[in-house]
């Protein structure tokens, strides 16, 4: 781990100490401090992005470099789990890259709110693009009135489906919960796995709940998050119980692949791509991976996953995608901020959003949106989109607790009330 000269020996040794104690027990944590980003040199910006944003961020950096001859960058990417380890270790050591990935809102150890509490993010509020952030999304970008991250737009969550599998079973895209069950039943009778679920990959476990909760919770109680914050609502006494019951209903009816807890995200992706399974509940940001698994990209479509039998109540989850921020300790903060300002131009927002299949944060005129996302646009327009639930959770413990209890539910090790009680307990712990 390359350390910046500004790290004092005492600080370095303290950090090594924590790692040493941990390594004494864990044996292998040394690997966690790795990452492939070297230290910055000269006028080169050191950038670490999220793997899911690679296409968009790389294009923005390349375009900016072409327009600014003195600009150069050292870019690397980390998958989601390594952002929690290698990048966080660099932040802890005071060796943060100049620009780095940050999750919007709260709810994760690498989220905007958690990092801003530690004063690790530079204030971007003076930049003109920040005035264009839609009101409903401000909580994802701002803390204490300061805008601290840039993100190109919103990713939606729904069912990515294989059109050929649907055609084989002679079924259409469902718009209500009952229709969904009927479609799954017909697919199953044709020998096609209705829904591929790779629940061994922890973050996949949450997606079906996230797809159902906008309909079972937020359509009836739009201020549910505020009530949770105030302590007047709980997971266990809310529509979360209905969502989890429906999750288990899909399992009990045999609509998932066998052994979802032993199946990975990659295996589930392959099942849908090849038509062995008909659909998977996923975020639009991973569409590219599904397209790569399919014979032709046009085989795949996407539709809002219905949660209720009242079409008007079927809201969708649409969250701001992982963004980038300027390190408050960067010696090249001004240079990094200029790049962020460039990212905030509508044409850059559009190009980045198009590259990662998300809906642009804002646009001038018609935005270019991946055609498979069109079924979701009316929901966004009608304010029937709810940010991904974790972005309003107060600490980094609720989300992994959610992952674990879903695996326990699928494994028959717990009940819905007990699972939600655990999530409530995690929620009530201090941030």
């Amino acid at each position, binding site marked *: 781990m390359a350390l910046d000269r500004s790290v004092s020996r*005492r600080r370095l*040794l*303290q*950090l*090594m*100490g*924590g*790692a*040493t*104690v*941990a390594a*004494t*027990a*864990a*044996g*292998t*944590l040394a690997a*966690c401090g790795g990452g492939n980003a070297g230290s910055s040199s000269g006028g080169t910006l050191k950038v670490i992005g999220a793997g899911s944003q690679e296409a968009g961020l790389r294009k923005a950096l390349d375009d900016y470099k072409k327009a600014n001859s003195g600009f150069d960058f050292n870019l690397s990417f980390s998958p989601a789990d390594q952002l*929690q*380890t290698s990048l*966080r*270790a660099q*932040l*802890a050591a005071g060796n943060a890259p100049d620009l780095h990935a940050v999750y919007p809102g709260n709810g994760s*150890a690498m989220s905007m709110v*958690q*990092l801003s*509490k*530690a*004063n*690790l993010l530079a204030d971007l509020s003076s930049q003109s693009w920040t005035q264009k952030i839609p009101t409903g999304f401000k909580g994802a970008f701002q803390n204490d009135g300061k805008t601290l991250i840039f993100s190109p737009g919103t990713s939606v969550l729904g069912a990515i489906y294989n059109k050929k599998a649907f055609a084989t079973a002679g079924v259409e895209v469902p718009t209500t919960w009952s229709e969904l069950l009927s479609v799954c039943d017909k697919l199953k009778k044709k020998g096609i796995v209705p829904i591929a679920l790779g*629940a*061994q990959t*922890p973050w996949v476990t949450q997606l079906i709940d996230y797809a159902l909760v906008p309909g079972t919770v937020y359509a009836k109680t739009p201020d549910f998050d505020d009530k949770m914050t105030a302590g007047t609502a709980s997971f266990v006494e809310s529509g979360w119980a209905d969502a989890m019951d429906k999750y288990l209903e899909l399992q009990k009816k045999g609509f998932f692949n*066998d*052994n*979802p*807890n*032993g*199946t*990975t995200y990659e*295996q589930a992706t392959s099942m849908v791509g090849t038509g062995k399974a008909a659909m998977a509940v996923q975020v639009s940001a991973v569409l590219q991976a599904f397209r790569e698994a399919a014979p032709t990209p046009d085989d795949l479509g996407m539709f809002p996953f219905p949660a209720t039998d009242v079409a008007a109540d079927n809201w969708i989850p649409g969250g701001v995608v992982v963004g980038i921020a300027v390190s408050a300790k960067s010696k090249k903060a001004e240079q990094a901020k200029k790049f962020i300002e460039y990212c905030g131009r509508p044409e850059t927002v559009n190009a980045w959003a198009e590259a990662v299949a998300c809906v642009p944060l804002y646009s001038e005129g018609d935005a270019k949106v991946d055609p498979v996302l069109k079924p979701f646009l009316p929901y966004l327009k009608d304010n029937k989109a709810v940010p991904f639930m974790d972005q309003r959770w107060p*600490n*980094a*413990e609720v989300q*992994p607790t959610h*992952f*674990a*209890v879903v*695996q*326990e539910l*699928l*494994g028959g*090790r*717990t009940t819905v009330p007990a699972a939600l009680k655990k999530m409530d307990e995690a929620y009530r712990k201090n941030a």
Partner: protein
Amino acid sequence: MTITAQAVRRDAVRAPRRRGGIAPPWLFAVPALAVYALVVLYPALSGAGSAFTDWSGVGEQRSFVGLDNFQQLFHDDQALGALRNTLLLTVAIVVIQNGIGLLLALGVHTNIKSRMTLRVIFFAPVVVSPVMVSFLWKYVYNPAPDAGLNAVLGAIGLGGLRQDWLGNPSLAIWSVAFTVIWQCAGYSMVIFLAGLEGVPAELHESAMVDGAGTVARFRHITWPLLAPALTINLMLSTVGGLTLFTQIIAMTNGGPGYATDTLSTVLYKQAFVYGKFGYSTAVALVLAIFVAAVSFIQIGYLRSRETAA
């Protein structure tokens, strides 16, 4: 026979004393001790201070919380479940890995023609990165009926034994244990083999002349003289089991649910996923003390057993 083996053992124990007389100056050890103190002891002790704070792992904000983290640890269901898993895994690994290692060592310590090749084959998994081994076994444990181990079971007519090896909460921990044993049994074998090479052949020859059979010779000659190798193997596998981390993170990430979490994965998650570096360090500290205590007790007992042998 026992008397002969004990005599050999006593010779071995006395041998270093005869070489004594001039104690090596401690001054020689000072450079190494200084480096050790600087890069291991001081950072470990100063880092351990975090266990008494609520530090998130980033930023400067931290408050002294006294023993709160330790009190929380002993009321934390996840940590207590992880402790149970850690002990289960350790017992399974120590017993089975060393049992298989001993059998392999005895098997290749014979005159069979292919013994050198077999030694290489049995040791080969040890030199592969644990992460690679974990991903390899994750493939083998694919739950689909037409993939990995399940496909093999189906092909040989044992389709009824197909399992969700890593997805079944009751089975996952044993699947991980099997992988660790598969990789590390060769290591135990090599240590036992070194011990077997040190058993004087004439003891076996004279025992055979006295009419001792294979079992009697193993019980009264080989087993007592393998005591030092057993000590090393038990020590290493116990510490390895208590600190097991890589294979679990790579294969199950502690899941399904918390079914395969160990103390090592809990402390990792607390630090890097939950952002509770202070609490994580408290878990690490307790684990380090626990491992040290178990190791001292174990080595004390095994050393006394060596002397008795």
